[in-house]
């Protein structure tokens, strides 16, 4: 019974296995990045960067058609340009990071739409750019795995400066030259994971799998190692459950995965021991007594 519901779909269909592998790869790559985003209070940056990347990928498509390489490179270039420009403006003027990022991603998005429209293509580009996790071919899977490996290695190498930058960026800047490297390396990782996530899940989903598991993990553990572990576990679980939901209940796969993660978030928010609503209510009572 359980076998039929949970394992059978993956045994019978190659596309389900590939989709699960893709989900696992994204969980390993994007979710740890999401944990750091959350700790640095940059959660909404993910969404902004996703919009900044879109035009680059669109231009890549215009130049070379539905080529993974062209769209990836295009997305990377656009994303890194916006990240670098906004980072530069933040450091040099008194603009906040959120304002400068908002300014540049909006400009990038408008430019992208303009370029696409004047080239006169009638095909809905945004639609073409949205990948689906059910249609991952070998190249896309390989890309996801490479991005996941790169992300993990980079995070491991930059772990200490990253943590310090989350806690006290001014201090890091004063004691180490690694501050700039860390900041931009981290932004590069965000862009890379979003670009990879596009092909698998589309924009919305790519950001969703970055942020939601991290947000949920917050309610279970405190230490950063624990946060990353729990978040990745939640992300993988959401991928599995989302795919099964899509399979058994005829739901579109991307939203199903993100809603599964959202459900876990809701549960964590309610009953998570580390600052969840229930635990807060309980601790109140204890204090009163």
């Amino acid at each position, binding site marked *: 019974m359980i076998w039929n519901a949970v394992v059978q779909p993956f045994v019978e269909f190659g*596309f389900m296995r590939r989709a699960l592998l893709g989900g696992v790869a994204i969980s390993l790559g994007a979710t740890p990045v999401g944990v750091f985003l959350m700790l640095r209070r940059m959660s909404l940056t993910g969404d902004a960067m996703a919009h900044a990347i879109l035009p680059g990928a669109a231009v890549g498509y215009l130049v070379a058609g*539905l080529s993974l390489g062209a769209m990836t490179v295009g997305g990377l270039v656009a994303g890194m340009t916006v990240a670098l420009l906004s980072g530069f403006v933040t450091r040099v003027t008194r603009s906040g990071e959120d304002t400068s990022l908002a300014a540049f991603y909006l400009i990038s998005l408008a430019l992208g739409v303009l370029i696409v429209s004047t080239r006169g293509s009638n*095909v809905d580009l945004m639609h073409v750019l949205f990948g689906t996790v059910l249609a991952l071919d070998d190249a896309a899977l390989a890309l996801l795995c490479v991005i996941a490996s790169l992300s993990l290695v980079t995070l491991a190498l930059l772990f200490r400066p990253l943590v310090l930058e989350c806690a006290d960026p001014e201090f890091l800047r004063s004691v180490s030259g690694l501050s700039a490297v860390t900041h931009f390396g981290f932004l590069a990782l965000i862009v890379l994971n979003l670009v990879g996530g596009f092909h698998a899940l589309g924009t919305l989903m790519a950001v969703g799998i970055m942020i939601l598991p991290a947000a949920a993990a917050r309610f279970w553990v405190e230490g950063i190692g624990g946060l990353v572990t729990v978040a990745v576990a939640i992300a993988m679980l959401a991928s599995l459950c989302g795919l099964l939901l899509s399979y058994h209940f005829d*739901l*579109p796969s991307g939203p199903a995965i993100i809603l599964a993660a959202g459900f876990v978030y809701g549960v964590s928010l309610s009953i998570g021991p580390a600052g969840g609503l229930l635990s807060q209510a309980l601790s109140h009572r204890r204090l009163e007594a």
Partner: protein
Amino acid sequence: MTTRRSFLAFALTVAVLSLVAPSTARPDGPLPVVATFSILGDVLERVGGEHVAVTTLVGPNGDTHVYEPTPSDARAVRGAALLMTNGLEFEGWIDRLVDVAEFDGERVVATDGIEPIVPNEDAHHDGEENHDGDAHDDGENRDGDAHAEGRDATAADEHTERAGDEHGHGAFDPHAWHDPELVAVYADNVADALAEIDPDNASDYRNNLAAYHAELAVLDSEIEAMMAALPENRRIVVTSHDAFGYFGRAYGLTFEAPRGLSTEDEASATDVAVLIRQIRERNLPAVFIESIGDRRLLDQIARETGAVIGGTLYTGALSEPGGPAGTYLDMMRHNATTLRRALGPNQ
């Protein structure tokens, strides 16, 4: 989100322009007319001939399901004497465009009088209506009724679990142009409208209509012969979205697709699994990609089942002029030939 933003922007632009631009009197010369997409534009050109100048909004290889109109489209519509739309909620964006452009010409809905296919939740459609030789009236039949006799409105969509409103459009399958008999009705409707707004040339329109009817009849029998040659167990076609209901109804084939009636729909794992099982069970040799939209899902299905990509079918747009599907007649011949080649008995 982007739709509303960009639409507001050009609505404002048009509003400002309309205050500033002087109104132009209709010049002598060909009537400016607008068709929403390339297939309609072709029919309009055939019937109107030299008396009309046709502007098409969604050009060759364009996707009308998800088209976003531009300010130049609004200008074209504004100055047009006649606007030809498909109807059956194919062009979800047209009503807003007409409002914003303050169109006051004649509006022709091509599918007026046609018995549409209603995709059904649990339709299981096995003995498809064959396109028997019912009398092909060559030009005098304006009524949709004669067509309705030979067909009933059974759904051609075999998706047992698909809800009727999942495809994001209305309750009807809009792709009626895949049946040449229905395109004859399209031409009838257009000829009527043209004769009404331009009575001086009415006899020319009628003559063009009669000629086109003859060509459509020839096309119809050609396709029927090609499809009849397909063996019974190979009359199933897998393609990207449910665009071929009317073709299937007319010529006795079944079409399956992971997405629903619109290219906008996102496929679920169930859709893909059902299709793969079908292909495996029936040993279908080929799947067919479309000229519009994204082929990656079909590639995945082909990879997993060992089916080949049987070719490209033109579903909702013509190709560029001079391409394999530059006119409606060419498009239909191309589709039928592609199907015949991939599914025929000598494979």
